[in-house]
């Protein structure tokens, strides 16, 4: 019997239930928001394949360089072999142009050396070298997503 007599409570039963319910709603809505925020982040990055076929090694005579628009990169063939340097400026993504001293960017004046190293301007890092390989049909392939250490060349 004594158990049933009311003792003064630190917090009323209804207040307590009300607060629990409010917390539960807040948690549910919070989690739902977090869940919804996941949607805009793509699972698969859309776009063309990063691997671009650029032609047969014989199309690229020794000692010359070529602008490959589809891969947004420059391909070189020197006495040590083939290599590809990305044409996308490491500052804010404009396309660099080639000149006698290397590359320069039209957007904020970054300049890069013959091997892509930063010479001038706001670009924080060198133009990356891209992986270049031979496909089974004998064509050269550039992978625009695979960066390799500068100086790596492909011998054919």
């Amino acid at each position, binding site marked *: 019997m004594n158990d049933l007599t009311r003792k003064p409570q630190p917090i009323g039963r209804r207040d307590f239930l009300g607060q629990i319910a409010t917390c539960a709603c807040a948690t549910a809505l919070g989690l739902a928001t977090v869940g919804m925020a996941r949607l*805009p*982040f*793509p699972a698969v*990055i*859309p*776009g063309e394949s990063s691997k671009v076929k650029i032609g047969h090694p014989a199309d690229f005579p020794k000692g010359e360089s070529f602008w490959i*628009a589809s891969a*947004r990169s420059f391909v070189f063939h020197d006495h040590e072999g083939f290599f590809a340097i990305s044409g996308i400026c490491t*500052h*804010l*993504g*404009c*396309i660099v142009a080639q000149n006698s001293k290397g590359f*320069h*960017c*039209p*957007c*904020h*004046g970054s300049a890069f050396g013959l091997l892509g190293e*930063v*010479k*001038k*301007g*706001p670009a*924080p*890092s060198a133009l990356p070298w891209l992986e270049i390989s031979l496909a089974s049909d004998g064509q050269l392939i550039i992978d625009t997503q695979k960066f390799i250490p500068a100086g790596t060349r492909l011998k054919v």
Partner: protein
Amino acid sequence: MQTSDKNISALRALLDNIKKAPVHFLHAVFRHDWPNTDRTRSQAVFSNFFLHIHSTRIHERSLRFWSTCGLGVASLCTFIILVATGILLMVYYNPSTELAYSSIKNIHFVVPTGKFIRNIHRWAAHLMVIFVLLHMVRVFYTNSYKNNREFNWLIGLALLVLTLGLSFTGYLLPWDQLAYWAITIGANIAQSPRELTDALGITQMLDIGGLQKQILLGADTVGQEALTRFYLLHVMVLPLAMSLLIGLHLWHVRKDGGLARPSEETEEKPARLLTGQEVAFRPVATKTYGLMALVKGKTPVVDKGTENTVSTWPNAFYAEMAVFMVICSICVVLSLWMDAPLKELANPVKPENPAKAPWYFLGLQELVSYSAFMGGIGIPTLVLLGLAMLPFLDRNPEQQGLWLAGKSHKAVMLQSIFLGAAIVVSLLAFTIRFGWMRDWFPGINQIVITFINPGTLLIALLMAWSLWISYRHNSIRIGAIAMFSCLVIAFLILTYFATVHRGPNWEFYWRMSEWPTH
């Protein structure tokens, strides 16, 4: 017989009701009599959803041109114009990379009135940025951001960010060269925290920059995904957020007690309102109303009495309509005079040279040409944070609603403008003449440049100056005036400089006519 009599009277009543239907309809919509007396007009303001953002009476001081210069209302007017013309443009615009450009061409060259509407939309967007910035400048210099108005100042800042966001997202939609490269640069600025995380070697773990770019573009480069997202933001998300916040902002102006005014009225020369009414301020005896204790903060009647107020209808409405008409005329004249630009179709392998952002971002673009992260994210964040902190740092409630009214306020503003201008110009001249650290120490670590470049140096110098001014005048408000004035002049000079003196390859030219042609 009786029943048919009854029936006839029901029919009579029906006829009567049909005749009176228009009147009853009007009464159902407007629950007051024809608004031709002060009383019925007050009822109108009071009972109408759209009008009740006003109180029924308004302080005379708030209606004087120099109290607001009409700039808040002007911002609202440009927004209304933008919504109306934007909806019209949506009738023909097609947000796909294949069709976007040709649909804009279609609007510009074929659609009846299309060019005119497009022009209005474009110029009103520029005007909105100008008015919102000027409105902020007026609120700052009239000391109107404190004493209950702190939160409204913050809402205002959010509105500023939304305004810039709307401009930025709208910029991509024509899918021309200008659009493509401006957004490429913008998206890479979002990615620029990598400059910092790369230098610290933690990009693998914490790639904030990459995530920001991903959520903005939905891909690695600006393409269909980016266009879809920008379109969604531009026509749905941002306008909705903007409407909501504008509502909140205006509601707050009212709830915070109307526009800021000095706490004591001094006798001044009488002024003439648009209605022809002459008003003069009279010092009023202080009153308190017991009931008002229920309402938080101050309302127009607390300790003021109604003595210095006039009726909102027509006085305030005339003023607002006048501003609206002026803004509409400016838009129409601009649109008849100049066409909105449209460059060639976007070409992802050939950037514009120079590739310039819209004018209000050009100051930032100059800073970005020193360091992507600092110019694009670091310094803007710092400035916004500083502005957001302002009403909590400077809490002295004196001289609200008056332009630079305190002792030496005007002097400090002028000094700061001259000093700020001198600092900006010398930093620019130095950088152009001597280059920056990479030219002197070719192998230098990027992180040194990120933290020490003309942009960060500028901010550091301005902060030092305003701290010193605070100390010398022993006033936080005066320090704030120094900082704000310096920032305003720095923004103006950088914007002018990047617009006029930066040419192809972001090189310095004295005149645009000297740009090499190619």
